[in-house]
């Protein structure tokens, strides 16, 4: 959606965004007048100690929460005055979430979990399952389509969750500690997937505690006490050829660019 408007506004623009909890004496400021611009195609890692407001920021960006003050422009449009139903529609069409705890629905099979966001776009069941299947293929989970979530490993569950976040072709992907529940092996596979998505032109905003993961990002934002402490752009991605080789050898199949274009063509 946003792809067509590349020269125009940034995907996300925050002006003086503030979030306060509680009232009176107990009032706490989770986000303190944040100004931020995020361009299309950036891979942002938000770092910072616990309670610095990273997750609150992510929730506001994902329209799960509303700011107390300030402005939030998504694709150039202010979202403050939109109804809750309109927010839901934006979540359905433009935002993909990846959670620390995966949040797969246990009674639904893998493919149904991936197809879930499409239901709220009003797509027919057949088309949903087909698109979900395509999405899973990208993550090499085709043979797990009819597994139940509890039959998968943590890394596989998170890949399913990423497939779900991507299935409706969102303009931003929001990931809240996507590797927080995974061991380092699985973490790297997940980060490879995210990095791969980034290379394909997706905008990714990731909250993390793990400084190692910032190597995948194109921009690192450090937060402290509800404010942006530092904002570093990493112009050229630092590649670690050794790690890259070992990671790709672990993967069952390399991602085929031909398939990607096919998938994109189908989505149009």
């Amino acid at each position: 959606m946003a792809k067509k408007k590349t020269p125009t506004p940034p995907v996300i623009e925050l002006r003086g965004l503030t979030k306060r909890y509680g009232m009176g004496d107990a009032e706490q400021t989770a986000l303190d007048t944040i100004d931020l611009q995020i361009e299309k195609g950036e891979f942002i890692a938000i770092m910072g100690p616990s309670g610095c407001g990273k997750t609150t920021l992510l929730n506001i960006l994902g329209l799960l929460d509303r700011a107390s003050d300030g402005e939030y422009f998504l694709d150039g449009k202010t979202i403050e005055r939109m109804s809750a139903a309109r927010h839901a529609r934006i979540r359905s069409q433009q935002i993909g979430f990846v959670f620390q705890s995966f949040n797969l629905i246990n009674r639904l099979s893998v493919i149904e979990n991936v197809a879930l966001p499409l239901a709220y776009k009003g797509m027919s069941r057949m088309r949903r399952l087909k698109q979900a299947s395509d999405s899973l293929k990208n993550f090499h989970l085709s043979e797990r389509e009819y597994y139940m979530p509890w039959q998968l490993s943590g890394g596989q569950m998170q890949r399913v969750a990423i497939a779900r976040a991507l299935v409706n072709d969102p303009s931003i992907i929001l990931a809240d500690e996507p590797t927080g529940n995974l061991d380092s092996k699985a973490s790297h596979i997940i980060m490879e997937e995210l990095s791969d998505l980034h290379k394909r032109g997706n905008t990714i905003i990731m909250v993390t505690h793990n400084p190692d993961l910032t190597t995948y990002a194109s921009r690192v934002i450090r937060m402290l006490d509800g404010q942006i402490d530092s904002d570093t752009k990493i112009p050229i991605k630092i590649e670690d050829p050794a790690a890259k080789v070992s990671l790709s050898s672990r993967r069952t199949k390399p991602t085929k660019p031909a398939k990607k274009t096919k998938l994109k063509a189908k989505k149009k």
Partner: protein
Amino acid sequence: MNRPLIIEHIQNAYHSLKITRLRTVLTTAGVAIGVATITTVLSLSGGVTQVIAGQVTALGGNITVVRPGTPTKGLEGFTNPTTEQTYTTSTITEQDYDNILDIKGVESAAPLMIINSSLKSSSNTVRNGTIVATTPDLADIAQLPLRDGQFIDSVTNKNTAVIGTKLSIDLFGTDQPIGQTFTAGGQQFTIIGVFKTMNNPINFNSVDFDHAAVLSLEGGKSFHQGIAQIQQIDIKAKSKKDLPDVIKRVDASLTNSHLGEKDFSILSGNAIAQPANRFFAAITFIMTLIAGISLVVGGVGIMNIMLVGVAERTREIGLRKAVGASNGNIIVQFLVESLIISAFGGLLGYIGGYAIAFMISTFLTFNPAFSWQVVLAAFGTSIIVGGVFGLYPALRAARKDPIESLRHYH
């Protein structure tokens, strides 16, 4: 939304209800019991009404009846029926009957004076037998079929009687009673005719002619010091078309002769059945009340189980919202679930209710009625119960904060 999600919601509800199979079945049973009671009661009382309405139609649809007492309507009709006045003097007099005969459009009319008396033959006694004193026209109006002998007519003696086959067997031990005598109220009556077995205790005359003895009006008056105590006058109009006009004229004439006092009611169509099924009406009322209570209990069950379901699926709700479900989607999702429970309960209750009604009807002389009203009542109430009691849990689900919900652990 380009397309309603109702099919998805139904599939989804089916899945989640299947997983919690036992509690779904139990909750469904709660609704089914209430609906079954309603179905049973309504189909049986409908059966009574249908039997009587059927008779009226079969007789040409041109019958109307006059009964003493003001017409009762609505709830009062169930709880305080004023039509039966066994121990008081009837407000309808023989004079009324004579007046009706003169009204234009009336083909014939017959008064019914119903007397409870014990009947004695030489060998047997029937306590609380029913004696109907009337005029010869009743045989035509109510189409009472004779098996043997003759009906009372203008020349028969006032000490003659026509009796039903079953009464004959009770009194004389034979179904060939002609020429035999019985005593009632100190007088002796000779039997001149016997009815065919009609097996029709529920009819618009409220008399089971199989168990009744029919006397002339003169004969009946001798039980009451020569005064007719008329419980009902059957009026047959010349044609069905004339009936509304006849009713108006009868009303005007009776109101006039009763000095403006409306102490009678003129009934036609299904209303004729009303006092006859008074007993059923009372049962209907009480049973409907019980059914209503059990439906409320069933509804509370639905609400309870839905609240549990909402609490259990807090994370799912959070996730669904995160991936684009609006509050409306969530409400509908949970509402569909409770409606499926209640509609399924309604279906089971409807089937079960008819099964019970048919079982009961083997002891009765009529079948339960199938009518769209019963279908409507069964499914209407179940859907309303599902909707009303499912709404709060659904709203609660929709109001959940997605962030809190996603943080929720079980």
